[in-house]
């Protein structure tokens, strides 16, 4: 063979192998908390406290999510008690996730509510099961007697969105939901037929939606007066996507960010109304890092008070909880915990959280608790006075039905 032929063959081989190498070297994009797509995803782990002092917490337990060996569990703490007990509504697989909305049972005093809102009639707590495997709708279970019994008459079809505030109860028993299909729906009461409130596409086309370049819906709530509130992620830097349904049309009512944050992209992580106060948790993405802020409004979103920014860097959000008085607690990856007491307060970094903390919660007298889940083991830890450290209050084994959903 002549040298020129050999050279050409070698070049051809080099080109072929280079092409093959390039084909085989693609890297998967690994994201953290993202909400730019139509259906946003936020961690579902959370806790809440009712006006009567009852605590509820949603935690993922069990094993592999891919093998459907994960099970989302609901825990209940009676008023005045420190110990938690398992209260997951029976009859349906919880592998897809669990979302709850609460109101004080039988309460007619909206101003005293400490959950997302209160209701004069209907359930004190509604739990919604996210779709999983072949199940495409969300069964709902409601309880009026502190999880002793559940009624299962209603469902959401298509299923609830994968965000912790995809379910909300209004002061008069109305129920609002966000669905996987990017729609918001409203029922006059649990079990009544659903009517369309709006959808991501429709809301994005309104003046309010265009102004923020709405890209996702992330939370539903009600004002203390019972007007539906929706929140989402905005493509326009500095815009905060919170909207209220006002006389049949949607109006932007989000706060204005301080100058330093006005160039970041904002997603509402959580939204709730408690004791007439709206609290919103915002994530502001700037460059490679993320800031988290709390915003409060005592006049149904007309005016807002903003917290200082909490620089979370690239730490992944594990859980968020909104509590009475506008307090909030966050769990960030790496065992980090932060709380804020309400308007005017500063973020408080907690001592390193116990390993496998799923969410923060409040104890019977407002003490801070960390709830941990390790496979089938549940534990509640309490923060000592003076931030001395965490003391284990309770340890319990949960009978996880491994293999039941495979």
């Amino acid at each position, binding site marked *: *063979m002549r040298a020129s032929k*050999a050279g050409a*063959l*070698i070049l*051809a*081989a*080099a080109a*072929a*192998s*280079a092409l*093959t*190498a390039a*084909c*085989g*070297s*693609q890297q998967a994009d690994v994201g953290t908390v993202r909400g730019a797509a139509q259906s946003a995803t936020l961690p579902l782990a959370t806790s809440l406290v009712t006006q009567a002092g009852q605590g509820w917490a949603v935690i993922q*337990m069990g094993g592999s999510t891919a093998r*459907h060996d994960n*099970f*989302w*569990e609901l825990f209940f703490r009676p008023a005045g008690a420190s110990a938690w007990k*398992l209260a*997951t509504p*029976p*009859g*349906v*697989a*919880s*592998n*897809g996730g*669990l979302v709850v909305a609460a109101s004080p049972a039988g309460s007619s005093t909206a101003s005293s509510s400490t959950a997302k809102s209160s209701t004069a009639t209907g359930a004190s707590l509604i739990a919604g*099961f996210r779709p*999983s*495997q*072949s*199940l*495409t*709708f969300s*069964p709902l279970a409601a309880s009026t007697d502190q999880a002793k019994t*559940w009624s*299962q*008459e*209603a*469902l959401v*079809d298509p299923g609830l969105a994968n965000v912790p505030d995809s379910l909300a109860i209004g002061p008069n028993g109305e129920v609002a939901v966000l669905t996987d299909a990017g729609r918001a729906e409203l029922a006059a009461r649990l079990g009544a037929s659903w009517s369309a409130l709006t959808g991501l596409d429709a809301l994005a086309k309104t003046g309010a939606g265009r102004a923020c370049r709405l890209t996702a819906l992330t939370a539903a709530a009600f004002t203390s007066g019972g007007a539906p509130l929706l929140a989402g992620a905005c493509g326009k830097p500095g815009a905060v996507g919170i909207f209220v349904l006002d006389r049949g049309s949607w109006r932007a009512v989000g706060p204005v960010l301080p100058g330093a944050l006005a160039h970041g992209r904002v997603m509402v992580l959580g939204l709730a109304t408690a004791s007439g106060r709206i609290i919103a948790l915002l994530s502001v993405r700037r460059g490679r890092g993320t800031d988290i802020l709390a915003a409060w409004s005592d006049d149904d979103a007309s005016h807002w008070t903003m917290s200082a920014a909490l620089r979370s860097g690239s730490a992944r959000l594990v859980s968020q909880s909104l509590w009475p008085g506008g307090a909030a607690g966050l769990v960030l990856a790496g065992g980090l915990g932060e709380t804020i007491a309400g308007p005017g307060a500063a973020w408080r970094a907690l001592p390193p959280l116990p390993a496998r903390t799923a969410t923060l919660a409040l104890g019977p007298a407002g003490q801070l608790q960390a709830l941990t889940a390790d496979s089938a083991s549940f534990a509640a830890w309490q923060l000592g006075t003076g931030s001395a450290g965490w003391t284990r209050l309770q340890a319990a084994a*949960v*009978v*996880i*039905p491994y*293999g*039941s*959903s*495979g």
Partner: protein
Amino acid sequence: MPGMNSGLSDTNPTLIAAFRAALVHQGLIVLALLALLGIAWIGTREWLPVTRSAAGARLAEPAARRFLRIGFGILWIFDGLLQAQPAMAAGLPSGVVEPTAASSPVWVQHLVNWAGTAWSFHPIQAGAAAVWIQIGIGAWLVAAPAGPVSRLAGLVSAGWGLVVWVFGEAFGGIFAPGLSFLFGAPGAVLFYCAAGLLIALPDRRWQTRQLSRQVLAGLGLFFVAMAILQAWPGRGFWQGKVGGQAGTLATMAKSMSGTPQPHLLSALVSGFASVAAADGFVINLVVVLVLAGAGLALISGQQRLIRPAIVVMLILCLADWVLVQDFGFLGGLGTDPNSMIPIALLLIGGYLALARGPATVQAAEPARTGAAEPARSLPSRLALSFGSASLRAVLAGWAAAVVLVGAAPMALAQASPTADPIISEAIDGSAAQLDFAAPAFTLTDQDGRAVSLASLRGKVVLLTFLDPVCTSDCPLIAQEFRAADQMLGASSRRVEMVAIVANPVYRATAYTRAFDSQEGMARLPNWLYLTGSLAQLRQAWRNYGIAAQILPAGGMIAHNDVAYVIDASGRTRTELNFDPGPGTASSESSFAAELTAAAQRVMRS
């Protein structure tokens, strides 16, 4: 039980027994064919005035061609025997083919999974076909030394090799990351194809040394390309350890050592994994240099370089075959000895062609009789031709028939769009034939109307129990009912498909309607999803042997999956265990076919 993971194991005894039976059955046909051909051939030679015409001088088969033909023939036979492993019929798609394609692009996965699904619809026929086709091709190659029949064997070998390379090896993984000569790239069977094409070449192409130079240069080019690929940075081959973890080569060797095999071999491969982890750079450097050096030597065409290059490459192939590829077929469901043996065969074949030179002329055997041939009828002429054929030609014909023995049942099976009933039988066992009055019930359908079993008299009722919020089994069962309804065609008008809620908690009609919508059951005019009070449901469950158990902590309701066929006069005639298994297209089709057959049986009786 829903969610209790009753899949279809590749060691399922029903499937293994059926596979063995098919192999024995077809094996007997193969032996009978051989006996018949042998008797006919001997008889023809004995009792007819067979003559052997003088063929004139013909070329002796070149040593290189003979080497490739017999070598790859033996490889095909070996591969065919590997295909006869008991778990192969059920396990090949999920245990071999689909994992091979898992890291390839989606279009490759679609292509391969399509073939896997086709296999899984008729696993017994497909498994047996793979055995006999490969044994047949191998025997054909070994038996047919020359002429068109031999060349056709080469062509068939290349064609089947291509099928295996695309669908069985997912293009040898060339579209997947981690491609490496050491791991078998670009797929062992591609070398079978190359050898088959060489064997299929006209005899005149073997009469010069040009062919051997082209083969060796082609191999040289391949080795150089593989050397560049092996040297490409960032692929983990230069490091024995990456971030404290074993590098690519060490990881591969470690995983191979963990497969079931004799301890001595496992220890050998494991030891090499340790060496690769410690001295990954040196090992990769040696591999790259050998591949590049040998490749360039083969491309050069100079015999003094080619011989040592082939020796060095053979050593590398042997070392890789033992230490990295772990003989290719040990552990799991091995289908071939991987790439190093075929590469070695091609190298030796190429060298033989170069060293031994073109074919020599072989003197023809003299004719047995020189008498003038009388005019004969066509059957007589065919019989005489058959009798005058050589033993090898007869064996080659038999081997071609073996290929057909394997391929024909599979081709016939593929003509049916329905999966074999053996799949559902393997999962749930056989149906029970019964004859007693079906227990009565009066419940509420998805539209709120009262429906009693008595009101369905005159129709065959297919009855099952479904949880409307079930995430796994019940939706599959509903789909199987839907598919059965389609299979029944016009006679579905004589059938009522009925499900009763099997969830003591979620039993409102809102849920039965949502389930119907989710599964597309609302479109079936003969579909009823019944519910009622807890007391009514419990009565129905008790009467039909259903146990619905609430599991704690977010578990799905556990209940038994069963279907009943109730005849038009209200008598229970068949009970089918109806755990839907893995929910694949084939299991779904198989269950639907089983249900359809049961309904048709009752309609006929």
